[in-house]
């Protein structure tokens, strides 16, 4: 792939940014998206390196979720590029981006309510020949074999997120936290390289949150899955993510290790508005 060499070198770094390590898995270059009069993303550029759990924080309305949407093909960006594994994936359809092994979850879980938990997961694996309806008539044996494989895999994933006891339950009947786990489980069914998690901890109790954090760390360490996650729970971000990217008003404000981000006046200003920072200065 020659595109990898052609990719523009990252812009000069600020001193407070961490030493670059690892290959750039996802690159966002000058991405913009406007909704009517609202500039949701404004020439935003950022990178996610392979093997990291990168946090994406920022005040409400900073454009974090819109950025996820623009990366995964839900919103067509007005300008800019998204490069994944050295390949330009800007404005591909969501299912095409999925096939590049880039998955996302939603802020509000969007489970398939009328399907069981097990089949919510069996839905996901790519390359199911049974998704062409004629194969159900013509190649039932092969469909059956794949279904068995997918079921076993789904059970493994359910075991991992501790939802096994609910496998035959309708997804609609799960609790909010369990739905979050199901969202994570769904991305695992695809053997992804990069997972974008949109507020995985929102509305999840402490116990479940701890398990979620452990799961994400385990997946990153043992399976080499890279995570980019939006989160408002600072405890979770600080314990889980490195580096942390701060977005404000549609752009990247800064990037750095969690401690540096926490104490940076620019971040406080973005979250609390100018007055706070002004008061600090006086």
């Amino acid at each position, binding site marked *: 792939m020659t595109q990898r060499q052609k990719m523009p070198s990252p812009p000069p770094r600020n001193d407070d940014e961490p030493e670059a390590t690892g290959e750039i898995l996802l690159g966002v270059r000058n991405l913009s998206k406007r909704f009517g009069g609202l500039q949701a993303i404004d020439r935003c550029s950022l990178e996610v390196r392979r093997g990291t759990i990168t946090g994406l924080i920022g005040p409400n309305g900073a454009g974090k979720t819109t950025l996820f949407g623009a990366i995964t093909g839900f919103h067509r960006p007005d300008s800019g590029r998204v490069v994944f594994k050295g390949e330009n994936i800007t404005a591909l359809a969501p299912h095409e981006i999925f096939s590049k092994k880039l998955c996302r979850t939603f802020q509000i879980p969007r489970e*398939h309510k009328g399907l069981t938990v097990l089949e919510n997961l069996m839905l996901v694996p790519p390359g199911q020949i*049974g*998704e062409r309806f004629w*194969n*159900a008539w013509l190649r*039932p044996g092969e469909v*059956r074999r794949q279904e068995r494989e997918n079921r076993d895999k789904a059970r493994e994933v359910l075991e991992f997120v501790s939802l096994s006891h609910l496998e*035959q339950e*309708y997804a609609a009947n799960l609790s909010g936290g369990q739905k979050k786990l199901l969202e994570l489980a769904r991305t695992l069914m*695809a053997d992804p390289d990069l997972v974008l998690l949109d507020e995985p901890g929102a509305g999840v109790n402490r116990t479940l949150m701890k398990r979620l954090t452990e799961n994400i760390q385990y997946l990153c360490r043992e399976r080499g899955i890279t995570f980019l996650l939006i989160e408002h729970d600072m405890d979770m971000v600080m314990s889980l993510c490195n580096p942390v990217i701060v977005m404000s008003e549609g752009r990247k404000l800064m990037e750095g290790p969690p401690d540096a981000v926490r104490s940076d006046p620019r971040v406080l200003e973005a979250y609390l508005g100018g007055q706070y920072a002004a008061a600090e200065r006086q």
Partner: protein
Amino acid sequence: MIQEQWVKAIFVAIPLVLIGLRLIRLHWALRIPAAAACGFAVAVLLVAMLPTGILAYLVSFSIMAGIYAILSLGLNSQWGLTGHLNFGIAGFFAIGAFTSALFTMSMPTGLLANYAKQAFGLEMPFLVGVLAAAIVAGLVAFLIAIPVLKLREDYLAIATLGIAEVIRLAFQNERWLANGPQPLRGIPRPLSCLVEDPACAWLPDSLATWLTPLAQRDYIFPYLVIVAVFVAVIYVALERISRSPWGRALRAVREEEASAAMNGKNVASLRVQSFVVGGVIMGIAGALYGPYVISISYSHFRPLFATFLVWVMLMLGGSGNNRGAILGAFIIWGVWSGTAFLADAITPLLSLISDDFASRSPYLRWMLVAILLELIVLYRPKGLLQEQKVVSLFLPRELPKKVPRTKT
């Protein structure tokens, strides 16, 4: 029983055996003889006990209900699986009926040619007509799907309703196509030679003599078998694909489109596929309707008759459940036919109030069906038979695990 009754009993038995094959839950080695035995026993009883007139009525009733069952199955693969609010069933039904008619009829000759016009008459066999109906209806569904499936829910309903009306009015006004406002008469009936004299040339003599007691009006008996076989084949074919990974992906699209897309499903393509599959099945229903009524005209394909009733059938039977679609068709067609007697019965009563009233009694039927729909939606929104919990039929059946049930 006389020979005529035995012959009829055998024809009646075949659909009953097909039902038995579905309902009796035994291993196939036992199921086939059990279904055969039960089917024949019930058929013999029916034929022996019922007066000829009532038996004939029941058979005609079942033919129409079977055709509606196919429409309902078609709607189920659109609405039940993917959530397409298709209010244009009548359009696909009409296309199927007229296409198969034109493919199987001969061009009018002699004096008749001055009065009856049609685009072509290919004199093809019945099955070719069915195939042509399926292909043309599928093609039209595909062409409609491209612009219309960008719409969702009620907008889709309005668009499809409009398209069905366009199709109906086209058949009404284009005289060259299928005789315009005049009915298209003389649609050939498949295997009609079974009840005619001389019998079909390919029949062995012994069978031909065995069938001689059947009169022309008894054609409904063999036709019932044809319709039943079509319902059974379509049911099995649909059940197979709607409970496969394809059906699961459609259900996923129905429940949560964005999420289905994020799970790598090509939402646009799946939506078109399900619309076309439904259209094809509705076209086949049309191809079966033509030979039964012999003459068809645009007026048969009004939305009330060919769209609204089908919706009530599927809603009652259970959206998403193919067995429910068939059950609903029989029940609603029963209610619909039953209310005809009711309307007749109360006509004298109504004429006491006013002459005007009596002539309007047929409309009471619509009111009753509409009330029934309201009751279904209020009290049985999921229908009589609900959608099966486990979608995939491609997994070995497992013993249900002991899982604590949570209330929905």
